[in-house]
């Protein structure tokens, strides 16, 4: 009983989409791509980039500040060299005299990644000698901050992706049905959305975590649920604007069923704001998760979650500022990357939005 889909696509061949050109010509978009790219690569190959395990402690290395890299060796030869820096039992920092060379692509601790798919003992760099090299310093337990940041990138990326997926999977259909059918379903879902939005920003995630309990999984769920009303609102608004347009009427007149109209005609036209929001929402999710970690309501120690790392660094801000500095920078650059990309996508997909 359904008619052939002669009405759905225009016969003209599409030229390379203009939005893509606009996007790739925008320096802010490129900057965003670079930040996100670095973040994803670091997350994907965290143990390779980390010289050490993120949880390996070293009592002689507590609060070691970022180490100085010398460009000349003991006999003046060029290269990258470091001295041993360690803490004496009395708590004093002690800098050794001897220089040890830094080597790239070294064999070290074996690691397993991607749930067992990737196994190796290769590391991007390491020191040739019986010393530890803390490029970004060490934390209160002598754990390498760089290694923790790299593994934390994986955590942040997972939280962001899972949270945005939850938001999309629930929020988009709710918004679609709610806008298309209206009526009681719309009335009820909109009241629920309103209630959810009455807990501003991170508060909704906090409320959910307070109910579900802390821990990474619950953080993902909480931050994901917090994204649902945002998508539901957004999509509903787009659908309301599209519902009565001619092409929708035409499709209905040709006998298309509601589900088909929604999926083939309305959703594709409502896609731009969804894409833009998803980039911005990644930033929000990562900031929320870090915020929860910072408040002690998120990841639990010894998890190398960025917000949690920052919280631990707070206690020794005056004596070891590097512990809190680097995780914060990491969060900021990743959030900035997604915000830049989201903004650029908005400009590229909807040039009327600005100016």
């Amino acid at each position, binding site marked *: 009983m359904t008619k052939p889909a002669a009405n759905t696509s225009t016969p003209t061949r599409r030229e390379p989409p203009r939005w893509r050109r606009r996007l790739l010509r925008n320096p802010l978009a490129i900057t965003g791509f670079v930040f996100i790219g670095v973040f994803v690569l670091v997350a994907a190959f965290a143990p390779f980039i980390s010289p050490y395990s993120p949880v390996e402690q070293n009592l002689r290395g507590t609060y070691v500040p970022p180490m100085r890299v010398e460009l000349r060796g003991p006999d003046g030869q060029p290269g990258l060299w470091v001295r041993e820096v360690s803490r004496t039992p009395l708590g004093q920092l002690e800098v050794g005299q001897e220089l040890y060379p830094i080597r790239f692509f070294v064999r070290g601790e074996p690691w397993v990644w991607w749930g067992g798919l990737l196994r190796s003992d290769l590391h991007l760099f390491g020191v040739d000698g019986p010393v530890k090299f803390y490029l970004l310093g060490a934390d209160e337990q002598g754990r390498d901050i760089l290694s923790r940041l790299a593994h934390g990138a994986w955590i942040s990326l997972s939280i962001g992706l899972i949270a945005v997926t939850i938001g999309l999977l629930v929020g988009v259909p709710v918004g679609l049905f709610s806008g298309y059918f209206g009526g009681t379903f719309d009335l009820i879902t909109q*009241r*629920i959305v*309103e*209630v959810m939005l*009455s*807990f*501003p*920003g*991170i*508060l909704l995630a*906090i*409320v959910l*975590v*307070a*109910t*579900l*309990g802390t821990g990474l999984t619950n953080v993902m769920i909480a931050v994901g649920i917090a994204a649902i009303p945002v998508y539901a609102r957004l999509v509903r608004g787009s659908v309301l604007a599209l519902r009565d347009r001619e092409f929708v009427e035409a499709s209905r007149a040709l006998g298309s069923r509601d589900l088909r109209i929604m999926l083939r005609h309305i959703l594709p036209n409502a896609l731009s704001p969804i894409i833009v929001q998803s980039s911005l929402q990644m*930033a929000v999710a990562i*900031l929320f998760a*870090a*915020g929860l970690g*910072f*408040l*002690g*309501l998120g990841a639990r120690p010894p998890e190398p979650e960025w*917000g949690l790392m*920052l*919280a631990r*660094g*707070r206690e020794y*801000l*005056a004596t070891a*500022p590097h512990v*809190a*500095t680097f*995780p*914060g*920078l990491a*969060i*900021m*650059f990743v*959030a*900035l990357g997604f*915000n*830049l990309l989201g*903004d650029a996508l908005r400009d590229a997909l909807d040039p009327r939005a*600005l*100016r």
Partner: protein
Amino acid sequence: MTTYVLRRLLTVIPTLLGVLLAVFLMVRLAPGDPAQLLAGEFATPETLADIRQRFGLDQPWYTQLGLYTLNVLRGDLGESVRTRKPVTYELSQYFPNTLRLTLGAMLVALLIGIPAGIIAAIRPGTIFDLLAMLGALIGVSMPVFWFGLMAILIFSVQLGWFPVAGTGTLRHLILPAITLGIGTAAILARMTRSAMLEVLSQDYIRTARAKGVAGRVVIFKHALRNALIPVVTIAGLQFGGLLEGAVITETVFAWPGIGQLLVGSILARDYPVVQGAVLLIAVAFILINLIVDLLYGAIDPRIRYD
């Protein structure tokens, strides 16, 4: 107008009831015995029995909800597990501090955000514009808690200009207010810029320029006044959003506000206070948005409600 106000007031009621239901469900859905959650870990059997009785925990859920609603309407939010004082008393101790912090932050946001947006809009495409907009993007990307810590590190620890934490004097307020306000400043700067650009492209601006009105007068009298209408709305709505940021900022600066109370209570599993704090923040947020909505019509006479 009057009908609009009445209708808008009526729409708030289901939302408020929904928030109440959500807060009610928090304790019921959390793992564990609600009575135990409300009474605390070390409650005696007598206290537990008393809590069960008072909140009707042995009754069906709708009775419980009714009882809870009635108690809330009467201003009885239960007792803090930690201090054994009424939750309403606890909230009244902490809320004024949050109010001071958010007001200070809003002042910071307005003072930074609006001028930055104006400068960016007057000279679009220049280095001022780029810097202001990049600054704004960094402002919304920066984790509040990290900015706060860095501010403490630089201005309190190293320069010694401000106290590290606590409350009391105006000097205590400055760093937390800047920390909390900076994100909102970023949002306001972007809003002001696009609103100004929009207005500056209008015919009446060209007319004003053509008839020889001084540039500054055009900007501030003709353009800014019109551009500020959406900005004021956003500022109002952001004011509610500041309540959210306050939760984190207060923790950073050990600022004894409602956010710190909330986080501390969650960590201590002091559920009655958690419920009270969440309820207070949500209700404050709803009411602020309501007021902004109603004021919107008063500020801009062009807006008609039907």
